[in-house]
């Protein structure tokens, strides 16, 4: 059967499954809508957290980024997993004991201030919207390639599906859908990885395979290092980023992970403090399966690409190459006129994307108008690595379709988790807690659902007008989470002396400086673009890593200000005492 027929069948079946689960688990109260009724088992919560957490960026983007950056890609691997240790040890058990619905709830109560609550709501919305933009673009990429529809149509389909189960089921629907989505996405990720590892090294376990030797008896990593250095690239296992930058980016991603509201909110859904600890462990275990496989896929894909295309005449190139060329994610310009593909260091094009024009050049390749002056002739979009890998390795069509379904599962589960944070922030933290305190449960549930609709529309807008690469956009959300939530929550638990004035000024300072830095050096919204390059970065820290600096500023400002203002009231100190003791968590309650 054709790839497209398989894709329709497999994607159709998985969508039917998600919708079926949503109908079966629809929410009847705000408690079910916000925290799934609080009765989720640690294992189910671990699975759901893993799906919630692993986004289009993890599934589609990460292996590609690692394939093209080698050792530098470690920042994502360590950063996005190491945060769970912080989450499990420093945040999850205490927030579960606190027993309310949301992160702004904790911040608002612990810092006895609606201003603090509002700052937290703004930060939550900011982080969630930045992050959801990347997800919707991921949905578009998968749809456009495998269902042969316009990217925009793909985004609309994605919006409709997410809306259906987020609207109907809230957290309860999302939780059980995410459990199913984890199963789909991990199966889809592992099957091709195992096949490819077997073919490359004879070892079915990719984690071991990429450290093994190929048929010629040479270790795969040594071969890749050799191929790359020969052509003038930096060796794969060395990387090009400075140590400082690697350190800061890893830290920003770790603290960001621990501070992401859609991940934290998941720990409110288990019955006991003990379960919150345990489910963080399960979550990381399920995440680690994918995160230790991705670097293996990256090595296989990079080796494959280097060996397949280098000096190959365009006329003899495999069909996957021309198919991806048709979607505009691969481009080749014959700069030296020899009809062969040369893949060398440097960008093959001017600007970020190749600009195509009508018609074909002399070998049948698509014409582009913006070739660069470097010798490199090949442009490859990093986002296609995982999607193209099964085709490159010549795996059967159903596996290719399965990968498409897995990518959609990853993007949709994360998008749904984020939409819930957005709708909860609006209906619970803004409307219920600040404007209409005596609103009825039924009314609040309605507002939560309407906010979900609004959030989907905004997310869809970002999907159609994507701000950039999937993973680099997501990386920014982490900087913002690291510089705002993480310090406020940690100090709220571990420092009894931390007060309202300190926490608010810390959050504002951290968020402001990080936003400024990103706007200045990443987005180019302020300042002279000519001085926003690498040479002008503060202390050599890239915008992706600056969240760590924002976090340090947050801590410093908060500690200083709190020393010069009055300590928190007795009642708040009791809250802190109380969350440190695990027993008597009971149900998450409203007040």
């Amino acid at each position: 059967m054709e790839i497209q027929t398989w894709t329709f069948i497999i994607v159709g079946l998985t969508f039917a499954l998600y919708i079926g689960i949503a109908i079966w688990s629809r929410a009847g109260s705000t408690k079910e809508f916000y925290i799934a009724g609080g009765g989720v088992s640690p294992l189910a919560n671990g699975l759901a957290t893993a799906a919630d957490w692993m986004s289009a960026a993890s599934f589609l983007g990460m292996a590609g980024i690692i394939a093209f950056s080698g050792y530098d890609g470690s920042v994502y691997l360590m950063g996005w997993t190491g945060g769970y240790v912080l989450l499990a040890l420093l945040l999850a058990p205490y927030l579960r004991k606190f027993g309310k619905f949301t992160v702004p709830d904790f911040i608002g109560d612990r810092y006895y201030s609606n201003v603090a609550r509002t700052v937290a709501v703004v930060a939550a919305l900011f982080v969630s919207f930045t992050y959801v933009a990347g997800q919707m673009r991921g949905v578009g990429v998968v749809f456009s390639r495998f269902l042969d529809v316009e990217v925009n149509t793909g985004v609309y389909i994605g919006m409709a599906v997410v809306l259906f189960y987020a609207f109907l089921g809230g957290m309860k629907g999302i939780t059980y859908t995410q459990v199913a989505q984890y199963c789909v996405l991990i199966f889809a990720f592992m099957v091709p990885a195992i096949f490819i590892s077997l073919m490359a090294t004879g070892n079915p376990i990719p984690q071991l395979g990429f450290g093994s030797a190929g048929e010629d008896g040479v270790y795969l990593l040594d071969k890749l290092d050799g191929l790359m250095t020969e052509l003038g690239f930096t060796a794969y296992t060395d990387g090009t980023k400075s140590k400082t930058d690697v350190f800061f980016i890893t830290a920003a991603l770790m603290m960001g992970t621990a501070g992401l509201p859609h991940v934290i909110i998941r720990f409110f859904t288990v019955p006991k403090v003990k379960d919150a600890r345990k489910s963080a462990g399960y979550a990381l275990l399920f995440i680690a399966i994918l995160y230790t496989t991705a670097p293996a896929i990256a090595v296989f894909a990079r080796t494959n690409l280097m060996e397949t295309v280098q000096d190959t005449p365009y006329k003899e190139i495999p069909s996957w190459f021309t198919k991806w060329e048709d979607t505009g994610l691969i481009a080749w310009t014959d700069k030296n006129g020899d009809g062969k593909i040369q893949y060398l260091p440097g960008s093959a094009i001017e600007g970020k994307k190749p600009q195509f024009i009508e018609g074909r050049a002399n070998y049948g390749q698509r014409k582009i108008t913006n070739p660069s002056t470097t010798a490199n002739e090949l442009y490859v979009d990093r986002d296609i690595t995982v999607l193209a890998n099964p085709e490159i390795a010549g795996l059967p069509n159903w596996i290719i379709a399965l990968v498409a379904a897995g990518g959609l599962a990853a993007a949709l589960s994360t998008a749904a988790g984020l939409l819930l944070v957005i709708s909860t922030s609006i209906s619970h933290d803004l409307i219920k807690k600040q404007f209409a305190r005596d609103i009825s449960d039924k009314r609040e549930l309605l507002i939560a659902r309407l906010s979900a609709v609004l959030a989907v529309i905004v997310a869809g807008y970002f999907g159609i007008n994507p701000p950039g690469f999937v993973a680099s956009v997501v990386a920014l959300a982490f900087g913002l989470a690291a510089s705002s939530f993480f310090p406020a929550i940690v100090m709220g638990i571990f420092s009894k002396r931390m007060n309202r004035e300190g926490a608010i000024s810390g959050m504002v300072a951290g968020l402001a400086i990080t936003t400024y830095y990103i706007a200045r050096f990443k987005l180019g919204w302020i300042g002279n673009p000519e001085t926003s390059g690498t040479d002008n970065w503060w202390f050599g820290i890239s915008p992706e890593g600056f969240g760590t600096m924002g976090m340090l500023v947050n801590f410093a400002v908060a500690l200083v200000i709190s020393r010069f203002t009055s300590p928190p009231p007795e009642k708040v100190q009791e809250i802190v005492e109380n969350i440190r003791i695990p027993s008597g968590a009971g149900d998450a309650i409203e007040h």
Partner: protein
Amino acid sequence: MELSQRKKYWKENLKYLSILLTIWFLVSYGFGILLVDELNTIRLGGFKLGFWFAQQGSIYVFVLLIFVYVRLMNKLDKKYKVNE
């Protein structure tokens, strides 16, 4: 729960945290980043050791750390009778 008991429970908790977080720092920032060049001179099969810690080893240790923490805390909760 008595105030002194509470203080003791919290102190033991903090002790576990500092030990576990030290290991967390060592395998990721230590072995994977700061000492990567030194460790890369040692090989683990086809892997350079520093590279392996950065892309595989640290993640395995992270998973282990959380489950060790769960065990330690469950025991601590029982000892101070705050378990459920």
